[in-house]
């Protein structure tokens, strides 16, 4: 599926599984997708960032491995209010400075915002099969900072992950390839602060043309989605989310057109929300060494009469 994603999107390296002959070689199954990325194709097509306002990103590489980034965001952010019908929007603007270090074995990303938040990510290949990932977010407010460490182990046809968080959060996931196309997995987590534990199961079936995945968790979430690749440029996706405790149901259908210079994604929801995201690679002429990408996002919520539009530019 590596040719599904254009250079516009950050590269997702996924080796193509070997074409199965008539007989399935059960001792030679491909390595499955990581548990977090089960719904990867559906999320890429359907979960567009609901961004409102202006965003401008500029990145400059100082070195082959080190780069800095500056980003300005201006726009209203939603604050959850008491009644579910009205949403309070507070206009905010902030500037974010970031530094990235990319090595084949080590990746460090740090971001600092003008409202005092620090976000740091680390990904290190400890060995050929063991990967350590850490994510920390520090804020000035007390008790709002958190950090999560993940240890991923990649076996021959399985993946296991252990997750440790700062407020006594422990989780583990395991996913195994059962046939060349089907992989099944499960997860267990225990959170110390709200004393909750949960268990979940997931399944993913993929072929060259389609990916279907389902996930059930004891928090009440049931997620099922299906992505069909119609041609090289077009894919359609549908998604169904159901929570059997709070009885929330959302179904959505969307399309994803990947063209040469742009990518258009559109989606319509059962809550009466339609949204579209257009990303375009702007050609700045032959003199410029930098590339620019612009994006434009629009969302219309017919039930709540909420209209959101956002646009942005990424340079470098």
């Amino acid at each position: 599926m590596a040719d599904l994603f254009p250079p516009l999107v950050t590269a997702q390296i996924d080796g193509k599984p070997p074409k199965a002959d008539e007989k399935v070689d059960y001792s030679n199954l491909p390595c499955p997708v990581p548990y977090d990325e089960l719904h990867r194709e559906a999320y890429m097509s359907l979960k567009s960032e609901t961004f409102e306002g202006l965003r401008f990103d500029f990145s400059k590489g100082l070195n082959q491995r080190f780069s800095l980034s500056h980003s300005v965001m201006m726009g209203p952010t939603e604050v959850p209010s008491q009644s579910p019908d009205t949403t309070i929007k507070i206009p905010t603007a902030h500037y974010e400075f970031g530094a990235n270090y990319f090595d084949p074995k080590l990746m460090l990303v740090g971001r600092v915002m003008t409202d005092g938040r620090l976000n740091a990510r680390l990904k290190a290949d400890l060995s050929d099969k063991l990967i350590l990932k850490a994510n920390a977010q520090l804020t000035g407010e007390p008790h709002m900072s958190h950090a999560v460490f993940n240890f991923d182990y990649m076996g021959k046809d399985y993946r296991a992950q252990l997750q440790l968080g700062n407020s006594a959060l422990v989780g583990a996931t395991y996913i195994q390839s059962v046939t060349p196309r089907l992989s099944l997995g499960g997860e267990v987590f225990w959170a110390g602060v709200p004393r909750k534990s949960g268990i979940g199961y997931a399944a993913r079936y993929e072929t060259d043309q389609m990916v279907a995945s389902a996930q059930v968790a004891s928090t009440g979430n049931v997620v099922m989605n299906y992505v069909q690749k119609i041609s090289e440029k077009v894919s359609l996706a549908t998604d169904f989310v159901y929570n059997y405790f709070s009885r929330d149901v959302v179904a959505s259908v969307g399309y994803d057109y990947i063209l040469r210079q742009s990518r258009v994604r559109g989606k319509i929801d059962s809550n009466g929300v339609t949204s579209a995201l257009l990303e375009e690679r702007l050609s700045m002429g032959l003199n410029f060494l930098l590339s620019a990408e612009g994006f434009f996002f629009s969302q219309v919520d017919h039930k709540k009469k909420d209209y959101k539009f956002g646009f942005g530019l990424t340079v470098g």
Partner: protein
Amino acid sequence: MAPERKGAGKSGGIDSSILAKIINHDVASKGRRAACGAVYVSKKLLRSTGKAAWIAGTTFLILVVPLFIQAERDQMLGEIEFQQASILGPPPPGAL
């Protein structure tokens, strides 16, 4: 004034009684009720058609218009590339 009114009332009375008879007739009142009902239903229909047209129009605008624009540009880009390829021909082997 009084006689005028009385006279008017009398002549108006005769007219008004004929008019009142027509107005209060069964058929006329049924027709009036039917007309009220038809106006009510048509108002509702117009409003719901308007709502549906608005929803359909904005949804079409959000979902379909950017796609058409981008697809057109991609097609034009393809045509330009094709024309350039046919005009310039394959690049010579010694070219950089």
